[in-house]
């Protein structure tokens, strides 16, 4: 069934060499994440180039499923959200709302056969919260085993065929 795509399948497809295109991560982050100011954002995008697109949001509770879907539809192989630690949201429950929305959006993409793991959330740690750059690097490492998104694969194949 389409909805049963798992991390194991993702990695298995990656091992078969299904595409060598570099991956693009859309990373939404709460602006209360340490070291996530404009200068840091620009530095990170400069460092990772088109592999990383950063989207600051005033609170992860501002995140809407449409943001994640549009990212996956238009350019991203994976879309992640960084939230404040549980119980530490400046707006009380923004991070918990984000969690529910991500879960629902994962269900949605699973219904069309897209792997749930292409959407994720990283809740920062209460003790020594990590900086934006550290978490971004960890997420990029984590998704590096993913194959390119099938949303773009067919289109790319079709274009190559046409040319």
């Amino acid at each position, binding site marked *: 069934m389409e909805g049963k795509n798992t991390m194991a399948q993702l990695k298995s497809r990656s091992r078969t060499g299904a595409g060598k295109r570099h991956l693009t991560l859309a990373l939404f982050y709460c602006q209360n994440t340490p070291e996530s100011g404009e200068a840091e954002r620009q530095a990170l995008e400069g460092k990772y180039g088109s592999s990383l697109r950063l989207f600051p949001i005033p609170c992860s509770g501002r995140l809407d499923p449409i943001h994640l879907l*549009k990212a996956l*539809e238009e350019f991203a192989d994976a879309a992640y959200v960084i939230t404040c630690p549980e119980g530490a949201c400046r707006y009380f429950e923004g991070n918990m709302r984000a969690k529910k929305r991500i879960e629902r959006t994962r269900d949605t993409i699973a219904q*069309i056969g897209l792997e749930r793991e292409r959407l994720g959330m990283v809740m920062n740690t209460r003790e020594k919260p990590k900086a934006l750059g550290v978490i971004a690097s960890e997420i990029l490492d984590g998704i590096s085993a993913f194959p390119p998104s099938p949303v773009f694969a*067919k289109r790319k194949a079709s274009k190559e065929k046409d040319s």
Partner: protein
Amino acid sequence: MITAEQKPLDEIRGTIASYQRILVLGCGSCVAECAAGGEKETGMLASTLRMAAKMEGREVLIREKTLERQCVKDFVILLDDVIHEYDAVLSLGCGAGVQAVADMFPEVPIIPALNTEFLGETKDQGLWVENCLGCGDCMLYHFGGICPLARCSKHLLNGPCGGSVDGKCEINPEVPCGWQLIIDRLEQHHALDRLEHIYPPKDWSKKQGGGPRKIIREDQQR
């Protein structure tokens, strides 16, 4: 408000599979309030369907638009300039909205993306509850503003049935007993005497016994 929920994606994809140019049409009224068919949900569904089409390698045009109301012709007419661009419209309106759009543009298939559910109230964020059957003969005055037809699981006009426990219905301990609510409210209003009246069986002819209902107001007509 009319409540609705989105149909399963598999079902939606099946109904639009034979079309190449599809307008996903939202409605900014009731179904927006219940987070089923407003602008946001319309964008999400359109985006998801576009992704699904890309993954299948299908060249399909899927655009989105949201009308303020799909059930009012003054708004539906706004499609006049664009509807010829599409083979089909996937409507996120309620059943009334779908049919209103279809009546105005009978040459285009108007396909429902939602299951219309009930007349209800937004009880809390993310919680909608049924509280009106649209019976055509409102009796809320007699029952302290709580409808025994919609909120008593047995639709009793002369309750309670005696099966409730701690104010909860015997069909499900999470469902408040409608008659407990009625009695509490009438007691609050010092109007328990209204329950001494024996109510005759409901006259359902005012609901659908006479076929599809309509309301005519000449003072509102052109």
